């Protein structure tokens, strides 16, 4: 009997607020024997679930379905905020300019234009037309970290395959590789945030800043949660507890990991590539 047949208790118990630690434990907190339906007197039952899909896996799919709406709403918010931000910037809304570039930017204007909405508008309209907000992005840099993240999905697949085959050496190598690549991505994100912040893109200063940091930050938290899960799997593996009949645990983490990757492909396209 495989574990897919066993209803189980999982830890998909947290929303994204408490994402990192919780998501990690979500997986660790794998099935227990205290499942309800299939014990005791009904041993004759073959323990198959009604859909033939294990409870854990079904629950993970449902959770990811819910996550789709979460990221969908966040991405919509980003798109709306960015559009409004750019319109206001082009229109020379002095609040937007001050929020984006600081009071100094407004005060550095030539005398006579300061405080005069008309002129401020004109000047920044030109600025905005020439250099909209995109050039702040370092596309090659982010492309590299995105590539690393995408490759980690491949490593994740290989880790699952190794687990199924009972090849524990490769299992550990690929789990470690996945976690490392995820960490490189997170490192890249931290570096990027730092640079942007220094360049003046503050969290609260503009709609764009708020939406950008919230969207990518939320995704980063999800990746971090995935890394914690992978590390936990690695520890289990070294303790000899992640054998081939536990392959589903690896698969579940993999599902989550692939989902987070796919979401990043979307975010990367929408935030970085589409002008």
């Amino acid at each position, binding site marked *: 009997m495989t574990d897919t047949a066993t209803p189980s208790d999982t830890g998909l118990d947290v929303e994204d607020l408490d994402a990192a630690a919780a998501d990690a434990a979500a997986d660790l907190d794998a099935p227990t024997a205290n499942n309800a339906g299939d014990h005791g007197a009904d041993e004759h039952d073959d323990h198959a679930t009604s859909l033939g899909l294990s409870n854990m896996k079904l629950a993970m799919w449902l959770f990811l379905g819910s996550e789709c709406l979460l990221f969908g709403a966040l991405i919509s918010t980003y798109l709306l905020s960015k559009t409004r931000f750019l319109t206001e910037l082009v229109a020379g809304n002095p609040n937007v300019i001050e929020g984006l570039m600081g009071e100094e930017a407004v005060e550095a204007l030539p005398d006579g234009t300061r405080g005069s909405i008309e002129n401020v508008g004109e000047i920044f309209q030109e600025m905005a037309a020439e250099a909209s907000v995109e050039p702040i992005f370092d596309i090659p840099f982010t492309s590299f970290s995105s590539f690393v993240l995408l490759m980690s999905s491949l490593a994740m697949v290989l880790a699952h395959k190794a687990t199924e085959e009972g090849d524990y050496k490769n299992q550990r190598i690929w789990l470690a590789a996945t976690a490392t690549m995820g960490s490189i991505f997170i490192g890249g994100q931290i570096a990027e945030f730092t640079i942007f912040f220094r360049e003046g893109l503050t*969290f609260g200063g503009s709609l764009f800043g708020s939406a950008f940091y919230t969207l990518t930050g939320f995704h980063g938290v999800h990746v971090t949660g995935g890394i914690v899960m992978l590390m936990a799997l690695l520890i289990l593996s070294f303790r000899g507890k992640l054998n081939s009949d536990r392959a589903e645990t690896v698969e579940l983490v993999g599902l989550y990991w692939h989902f987070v990757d796919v979401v990043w492909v979307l975010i990367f396209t929408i935030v970085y590539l589409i002008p």
Partner: protein
Amino acid sequence: MAVIENNPMALPVGESANRASNPLGVFARPRAVTGLKDWLTTVDHKKIGIMYGSAAMFFLLIGGAAALALRIQLATPNSSFLSADAYNQAFTMHGTVMVFLVVMPIGAAFANYLLPLQVGARDVAFPRINAFSFWVFLFGGLMLNTSWFLGGGANGGWFNYAPNNGIIYSPSHGIDFWNVGLLIAGIGSLTGAVNLITTVLNMRAPGMTLMRMPVFVWMTLVTQFLLLFAIPVLTVAQILLLMDRNFGASFFAVDLGADPLLWQHLFWIFGHPEVYLMILPAFGIVSEVIPTFARKPIFGYPFMVFSGVAIGFMGWGVWAHHMFVSGLGPLSVSAFSFATMFIAVPTGVKVLNWLATLWGGKLTLNTAMLFAIGLVTQFTIGGISGVSHAIAPSDTQQTDTYYIVAHFHYVLFGGALFGFISGLYFWWPKAFGYKLNEGHGKFNFWAMVLGFNLTFGPMHILGLQGMPRRMHTYDDAMGFNLWNFVASIGSFILAIGTLWVLVNAFISYRAWKAEGRPDVGPDPWDGRTLEWAIQSPAPEHNFDVTPQVTALDDFWHQKYNEVEHGKLKRVATGAELAQPGNGEGVHLPAPSYWPIFLSASMPVIGYGVIFSLWLLVPGLLMMTAGLFGWALEPADDLDIDDHGHGHDADDHELVGAH
């Protein structure tokens, strides 16, 4: 069975047995089966269901008290019973509490108690998560209500439109509590949804195909899917607000170009499915009660199922009808007006199918049935008035007036709450082993019907006469005096009627105890679904033997044989067929400390976000400890023999063998 190995971090089975020699004894499962500790650590879906119901009743008292305060204030023009600020807090908290902490959890209470029983499962798919869902809802709700003592409740309305919800226009902490409290409660709804959907889809008894599931199970399934997809949208809206209010973001800063309608869109994309997920469980309940007391199967089962599913789908395409006057432009308004009208179709199908079930039936008019018919009639009134504001031009006169207040109270009070009370009377003997008193029940019903119509009926008139909502006062010259006074009188009758549920429970319990606790029997109503095939109150292990299902209303068909087309003959009583409640050999999930412990960390973090980020340190530590405790907790505590039900040797062997 590979179950133990399946939990790699958990301690081996049996290691927890001897606490003295077990350095990690703290991770042992709690053992209490009665008393407070049992309730705090239980993972039994029935106990959790009862706790959901009790918590909802408690919050109902808070929300009801707020409602009465509103009605006292509005009974007379220019009243000074409540200040403007107090009134704003009261109506905001009334709406928030009633929606999130009363109607939703009562739905969860019935779902928790009944879903496993009706699909023939021993518990939900993830019992500990089930407990976690409840506790996190409770702590979120309690946290929300502590705002009354910590600087005042939220005052932005339950819809909490931006930018009035921003820190500039609402500088008190009320909206922070609203925001964080509901975020926390939302976690519970989400985990609950995952859990219950998995249970329904995956843990049905053999033969229980989807189209043999009781309508209640179907409606709850749709409800939980709505929750699963709606809650994250609200979560996003609330996170944006949290970032704005507490971390200086500018999502709703109009001076930076933000569009305040973003909040409305996000809120109502959540909010309209929310409306349906409040009413659908009640639809499910009356779809069980009416056939039982009409002694006929539900008319048009597939239509009942698919209309419910259709409502679930269509609920996603109509959110902007809350925004007909928000300036969306005529194209959007036309589209949403058109879509909204058609949501009346599946709802109408349900109402007509209930009536067709009554047609030609032999109706037993007990309290449960009265409340069910109450739902059909009262909800219909709300449904009809709904059509008049689906017509967008007409809605420009009606929206944000008392006409709308009347409409959604007919739908949510006359609909959802009547349905829930019907279910309470119906399943009370199954849960507690005695029936509620019928005499008091009838009083309960008639007081509620009278009070309800006196309270909300006149609001139709007030709204059409131009009385807007959310007004803390009105003038003498506006012509609103009479009907407001009538509504206020009605609200007290309604309050007495609603309280009578509790009074009746108390009276009935006393009478039952005085009579020496007679056995109500497994099947007091001649029921149709699986929960009546077990003893009352439902044994902790639910079914001695997993039932084999061969038809819709399987239990009914075991009792009655069809002698000729459409004619039935009784071949057995429910009591003869019911399982004896012998839990020999049944192995149940053991209780756990961790759900409540983990949940308790949430409000600590919540207070931290509101008052001081330093509180996040103990909060996050608690959460981490909770998660590790949860993960490391032994899979089970097999050596507890006094668990109210034994474990046979096979079970141990079974575990060891794999």
